[in-house]
């Protein structure tokens, strides 16, 4: 029970400091909105196929996440709270707490991005349940990889725009599956048709989160 309480405390700490300044949330929100609107203006009145629609949506989501989510560990390093966390909690608690916090942010990001996209383009979604499942599984895989890599770049001296470079090639399997699943959801293909993609997403999220949990110890300790 101690472990769960520790992880929950890390999550609450992150959430509370975020709610005080709302910096990361606002950056993420503004980035996803401006990127989406740029994409929508660039398309104009042109009607694009479902494949291109879902591809554009997910590219915006992945780029927003890779730019907006790199701060969670850098801010610990900047404010000097890293040492306190290292002393008072175990590495796996920190990872679980940060993962939960990132997952919350990514779920919010996905919801906003999808709602804006669907409303502005006026796309009717024929399988909303499938779309929700795709968004949730995509968020799970995305947050697992992002949390570990955010911890990695916080350790690099010249971190700058390093997260997108490290993250995007690793997310190609995720991108391909979510794009296909989103397209099937828009077309109304149903659950059975998207089985392969959903299973791949579950596998990807499981593999990345387990690997990240094991590897996080080596990033966290000095």
């Amino acid at each position, binding site marked *: 029970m101690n472990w769960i309480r520790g992880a929950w405390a890390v999550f609450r700490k992150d959430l509370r400091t975020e709610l005080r300044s709302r910096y990361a949330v606002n950056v993420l929100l503004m980035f996803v909105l401006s990127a989406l609107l740029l994409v929508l203006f660039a398309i104009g009145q042109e009607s694009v196929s479902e494949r291109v629609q879902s591809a554009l949506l997910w590219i915006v989501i992945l780029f927003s996440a890779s730019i907006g989510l790199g701060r969670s560990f850098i801010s610990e390093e900047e404010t000097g709270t890293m040492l306190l966390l290292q002393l008072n909690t175990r590495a796996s608690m920190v990872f679980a707490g940060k993962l939960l916090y990132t997952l919350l942010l990514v779920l919010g990001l996905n919801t906003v991005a999808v709602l804006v996209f669907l409303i502005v383009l006026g796309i009717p979604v024929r399988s909303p349940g499938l779309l929700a499942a795709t968004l949730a599984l995509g968020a799970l895989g995305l947050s697992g990889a992002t949390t570990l*890599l955010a911890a990695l770049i916080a350790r690099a001296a010249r971190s700058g725009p390093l997260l997108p470079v490290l993250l995007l090639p690793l997310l*190609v399997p995720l991108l391909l599956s979510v794009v296909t699943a989103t397209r099937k959801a828009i077309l109304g293909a149903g659950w059975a048709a998207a089985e392969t993609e959903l299973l*791949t997403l579950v596998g990807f999220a499981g593999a990345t989160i387990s690997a990240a949990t094991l590897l996080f110890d080596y990033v966290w300790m000095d």
Partner: protein
Amino acid sequence: MATSTSRAPDASSALVGSRLYTAVRAFVVLTLTYVIIAGLLGSIPQLSILEETARNLYFHVPMWFSLMGLTVVSAYHSLRFLQTGDLLRDVRAREAARVGMLFGIIGITTGMMWARFTWYEGTNKWWNFDPKQSMAAILLLIYGAYFVLRSGIDIAEKRGRIAAVYNLFAVVTMPFLLYVLPRQMDSLHPGAEGSPTFSQTDLAPAMRWIFYPAVLGFFGLAWWIYTQRVRVAWLEDDARDEPDL
């Protein structure tokens, strides 16, 4: 300099047994000479579309086998580095990744040329998003990111640890890139659509006598370049005032 003089002068040869090195070098020189001559001049079955380009099999496919081998070597040394903290392991992981990238770039180039004159003959296309081709390009991007990450960290021990974590994390996603996704898509590569890779029936008996030596020869070449690069890195480090290794 005190530390470097205290070591045996030929300490770098301890990295690779010199007898093993000589044996592999002789094997590589002989085998690859045979493969190049027999591969370019030997007789092959004339199949439509493939025709003489089938000879590329001896060069294109071993590149990918060697890349896979070096990926495993690099990941293994990254894992050992995390366990032991021995910086030589980090050098090995780095050099295996670098040689792997070289083989990958040659593999992708030979693959593009092969595809250009068989699958896409008459279309003038060099790149047509064949799944395996695209995934191979992504694999090279991941190794590119690995080296970018390395250049962002100055302290050797920390760099080794962070790079090893990224390397191992990337290895976890590689099965999706190389095995899961390509089988869900249409591909012209052998081994697509759920069938296991490269089957025995794909290869004419006469070609096996050149293909198998080619695979072994290029494995040997990869090992040769890799061990030499590790030795050079070791010597460069040893020449510094305060060696890390």
